[in-house]
């Protein structure tokens, strides 16, 4: 449930972002048409580009700005945008890392193909941010014995840990804890709730 929610959110954000950029560029094109023609009459692409700058600062009216200043401003802005985008991507990756759980079958700590692909994604992140560690929390559904489930949760957390270390992540960066059946995500006595509760959660630290 949680996972589907995040997937939906990410897709919605992507569509929104796409929509924004298209409308913006459309807007830029229109505004750029005048000054672009007036000044140098370079290619449309440059025209658009300079127009982009003209939207951020009212250059034509302000007058006295040199070509060099303009270029520097443009470069700074581009850099800022790039950084922003990188930060957004990193934030999204971190959010995904912290919220995307892996799930298990009843009385089982084996990793499914889906769990493995999620773990590969997490390994990539950990390689990208070598100063971060992760706490893996193993959980169970509330069927079965409470004591056995403590061990099963421990086993699930260790399955995930072992997979990450097999992918080259230093074991010292990974801590595990079992909560057994003590912290269910979903309430209810049905397979949908149980399936959500049989999980490992991940927390960057």
């Amino acid at each position: 449930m949680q996972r589907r929610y995040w997937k939906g959110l990410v897709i919605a954000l992507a569509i929104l972002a796409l929509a924004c950029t298209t409308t913006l560029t459309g807007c830029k094109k229109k505004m750029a048409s005048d000054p672009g023609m007036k000044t140098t009459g370079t290619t449309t692409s440059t025209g658009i580009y300079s127009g982009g700058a003209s939207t951020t600062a009212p250059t034509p009216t302000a007058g006295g700005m040199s070509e060099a200043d303009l270029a520097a401003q443009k470069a700074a802005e581009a850099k800022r945008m790039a950084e922003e985008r990188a930060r957004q991507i990193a934030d999204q990756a971190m959010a995904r890392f912290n919220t995307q759980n892996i799930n298990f079958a009843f009385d089982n700590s084996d990793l499914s193909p889906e769990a493995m692909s999620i773990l590969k994604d997490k390994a990539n992140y950990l390689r990208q941010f070598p100063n971060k560690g992760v706490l893996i929390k193993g959980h169970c559904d509330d069927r079965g014995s409470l004591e056995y489930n403590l061990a099963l949760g421990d086993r699930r957390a260790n399955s995930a840990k072992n997979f990450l270390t097999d992918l080259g992540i230093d074991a010292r960066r990974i801590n595990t804890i079992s909560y057994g059946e003590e912290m269910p995500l979903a309430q209810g006595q049905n397979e949908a709730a149980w399936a959500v509760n049989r999980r490992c959660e991940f927390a960057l630290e």
Partner: protein
Amino acid sequence: MSKTFIRTACTCFLFLLSMSLLAGSAAAARYEYWINNPFLRKIPIAIPDFLPQTVNEEPRQAAVQAREWLISGLEFVRYFKILPPESYIISDGESLTAQTINFTNWTSIGADHLITGGLDLRGNVLEMELRLFDVPRNRLIVGKRYKGQVEDMRKMIRRFCVEIVSALTDSKGVFGTKIAFVSNGPGNKEIFACEYDGFDPQQLTSGSKIALSPAWSGDGTHMAYVSYADGTPQIFVRNLEQKSGIKIAYKGMNVTPAWDPTRFSLAATLSLNGDQEIYSLTGNGKIIKKLTNNWGIDVSPSYSPDGKQMAFVSNRSGNPQIYIMEMDTGEVRRVTFTGKYNSGPSFSPKGDRIAYAGMDDGTFDIYTVRTDGTDVQQLTNDPGDDESPSWSPDGTLIAFSTTREGKPRIYVMTSHGTDQNRLLLLDGGQTQPAWSPWLGDY
């Protein structure tokens, strides 16, 4: 920690004296057969109203309360039947002693035994005389006089219950025991303990975040339990009298402690290397030995009363089943073969049977089985989950947790599954009952 334990420690201060009124020298009737076969019949006892020595309101109320506690105590052990007072035929002048009692009337209503009680309350000082009679033989079995503060009335009753059970059976019964359990009433799971019959529940731990799996040491002086107070699951071993304690905090998890009843030593599941194995540890948490060696889950140890065997849960066969280990050779044999999920073993105090929770049709019920794997008996059968069986130290009763009411509750039944009743009603849900050994006169 709890006031109860402080109170326990201070009992020597109370001048609670008791003396035999008359030495019941002749051998009392022994009821082992009935106690161990609750389907047959219960021991019929008549308990007429207690007689206050003065007619004031307070002694009269005390007499009513004392008799109620005696009846509820005897009913709790589930092998006595208290005959209904409507049937009693009490002759004129009948009083507390054998000389005044018309035994024929008590025989005619089917009473094997008769208990008389008299008390006097002056200010805060309570004196109580209690006598148990053998009705068919027309004679006194045991008589006691108790003197103490009025607050000690329950203790006096409990002491006399011990006298009754000691006279009629080969054991001291359950009156000097307590039951520890987990309750999430405080908002998170903490350890509690109450008297054998659910009276006076006290919270023993706080700030645990999650507390689980209480376990009494063989002599009742220490309690081990699992706590997440420091973040990860660790085993806390607490001296109940001195209120001191140590933590067992190896890397990985430290769970499911169980005491060797013969030594200051316990078994617990640790996951030092990512594999869950049972280790034996000193009472101070030092590893003595790795007991299991199997790539899989080994958990929930329970020692036999002589400490020579240990039952535990392992998934080495593919799903959780009960196994027994011989402690001297390390040899392991499987005990449960029916069902795909058997857990929570508890060795009977006689060492002949294991109680456990087995899953059938998706829910757990309590079973017992002989240690050789034969004679499986199903004790509970209801739509809820019945789990975590724990034997009373005399082997006649089993406490367990059940979700039959919705929220998890502690229930008690005979070791044959009869007379299933709720132990106590508390806020939140209660799980994982652990019956103490004989604690003496708390």
